[in-house]
């Protein structure tokens, strides 16, 4: 696809952690508060203040490290990353540099049936910056520091990805893990899960890396894939035309589907990192790591295997259901409420997730509100399994159950929707239909099996859609062959 070149892609993810308070002060880390209400002298960078590390941030970082196979360093330390920008109150960001908390590890992804392991370089803790707001009616900009000091994990991959699809698969797998760990909501649009991509190309077979370009401003998985795709093609074209590439940061413009040069990337030492004197080194002993490990939830790969083995689901269904913890939990709640596993999977993948999408009940794929409780959808599924109503009736009922607490069985009883399996009543309907359609009867008898579908449809119509289609088919066949 790249004309003799191969892609080398590494991703840097910033995940906002779901803590109650900020990383170094007791301000609320909540998203969406009025401007500059969740701020204090510490996160505003006032003189003489000191940071105090939030224990839960460390715990969350250990969780992420263990879930991705990293080694948790017993001794790690914070560093200052110095640069000037209006959204950075202190003139430096407290981050980790030489001794990060988590190192090594990796993620397994499957792309087009091929399994690959993407290595992780490191995971470290740092603080988020404030937000610049463009002021429409003035020459200045405005700064809101509510987000300044919100805890972040920076998760850096090795340059192990070779295609935009692999980059997308890695991101989805990583986000799924963070959501399972309940440490990040993974909302790309709100910016709680952000991704920058480092891309370069080299001639296939070359060992050295090509010139690296960083891409920013991608706020969805799809945009990450599109941006990387565009950038790789751009680089190959430049090289083929004999142009030299230079290391830079480029912004993805989703409206014009292109990346644009932003600024020359400062080299790392320009941040003049040095150990943070205001924080002592962090010591994480084995007992703490073991306690966090013991409390880890079942992660997506294990849950996928269990869904296949214990519930007899197909690999595809198990994959769809376990990508998100909330969906997997919903499935298990339905099964616990007596729905068959295959049925529950079908209801969720074909009906429920469609409604969630249509009614936009998920914010960037975190379902905040279920249209119907799992116990009630299970009750509806059971009515079909038990033969009380047919599948079509059930599908028609679903929209009427949304957002209510009506019991599906009560609704079926109240409206007389129970399917007719009474053979005498159906027999009459069948004879009636055959009498009215002699032509089709003739066609069927001369071997046109397909006509049976039409006849079943006619019987269904006369019973107001409530007949049991299997029984109707049996009765029709019996009547036609007599």
């Amino acid at each position: 696809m790249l004309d003799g070149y191969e892609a080398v892609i590494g991703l840097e993810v910033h995940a906002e952690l779901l803590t109650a308070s900020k990383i170094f002060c007791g301000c609320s880390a909540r998203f969406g508060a009025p401007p500059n209400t969740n701020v204090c002298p510490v996160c505003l960078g006032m003189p003489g203040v000191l940071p105090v590390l939030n224990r839960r941030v460390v715990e969350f970082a250990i969780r992420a490290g263990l879930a991705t196979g990293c080694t948790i360093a017993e001794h790690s330390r914070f560093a200052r990353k110095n640069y000037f920008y209006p959204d950075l109150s202190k003139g430096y960001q407290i981050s980790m540099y030489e001794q990060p908390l988590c190192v090594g590890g990796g993620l397994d992804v499957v792309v087009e049936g091929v399994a690959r392991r993407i290595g992780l370089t490191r995971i470290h803790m740092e603080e988020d910056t404030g937000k610049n707001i463009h002021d429409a009616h003035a020459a200045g900009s405005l700064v809101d520091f509510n987000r300044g000091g919100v805890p972040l994990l920076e998760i850096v991959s090795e340059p192990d990805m070779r295609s935009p699809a692999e980059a997308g698969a890695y991101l989805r797998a990583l986000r799924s893990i963070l959501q399972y760990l309940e440490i990040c909501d993974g909302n790309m649009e709100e910016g709680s899960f952000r991704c920058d991509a480092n891309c370069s190309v080299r001639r296939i077979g070359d060992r050295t890396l090509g010139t690296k370009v960083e891409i920013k401003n991608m706020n969805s998985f799809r945009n990450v894939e599109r941006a990387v795709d565009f950038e790789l093609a751009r680089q190959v074209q430049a090289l083929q035309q004999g142009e030299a590439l230079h290391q830079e940061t480029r912004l993805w413009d989703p409206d014009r589907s292109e990346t644009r040069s932003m600024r020359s990337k400062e080299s790392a030492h320009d941040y003049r990192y040095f150990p943070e004197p205001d924080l002592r080194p962090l010591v994480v002993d084995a007992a703490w790591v073991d306690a966090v490990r013991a409390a880890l939830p079942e992660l997506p790969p294990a849950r996928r295997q269990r869904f296949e083995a214990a519930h007899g689901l197909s690999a595809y269904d198990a994959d769809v259901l376990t990508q998100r913890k909330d969906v997997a939990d919903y499935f298990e709640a339905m099964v616990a409420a007596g729905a068959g596993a295959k049925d529950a999977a079908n209801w969720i993948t074909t009906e429920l997730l469609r409604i969630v999408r249509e009614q936009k009940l998920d914010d960037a794929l975190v379902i905040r509100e279920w249209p119907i409780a799992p116990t009630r959808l299970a009750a509806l599924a059971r009515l079909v399994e038990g033969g009380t109503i047919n599948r079509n009736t059930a599908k028609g009922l679903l929209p009427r159950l949304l957002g209510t607490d009506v019991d599906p069985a009560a609704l079926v009883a109240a409206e007389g929707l129970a399917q007719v399996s009474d053979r005498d009543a159906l027999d009459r309907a069948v004879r009636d239909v055959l009498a009215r359609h002699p032509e089709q009867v003739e066609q069927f008898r001369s071997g046109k099996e397909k006509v049976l579908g039409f006849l079943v449809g006619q019987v269904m119509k006369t019973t107001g859609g409530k007949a049991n289609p299997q029984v109707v088919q049996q009765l029709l066949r019996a009547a036609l062959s007599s």
Partner: protein
Amino acid sequence: MALTLDEVRQVAALARLRLEPDEETRLTADLDHILDAFTRLAALDTTGVEPTAHVDPESAPLRDDAVTNPEAPDALFEGAPARSGRLFRVPRIIE
């Protein structure tokens, strides 16, 4: 190693310091002198000595994850050179 004028200018730019030509000359000499002192320190054999990131070897104290700060009082914003309500106003940022 002698520090060059260009290096001083680059560090000044990173630190957002505007230096007059005579300050640049003076600081080049001063900084060179300071770096010399470190060169002498760097000559020490520190094999087997743990790098000192902090004088206190104790682990960092940690706080519980709880919101303990009240909503920001107005006094926090009184020192700001330019404001728009509760928002800090800064020169226009050009991405």
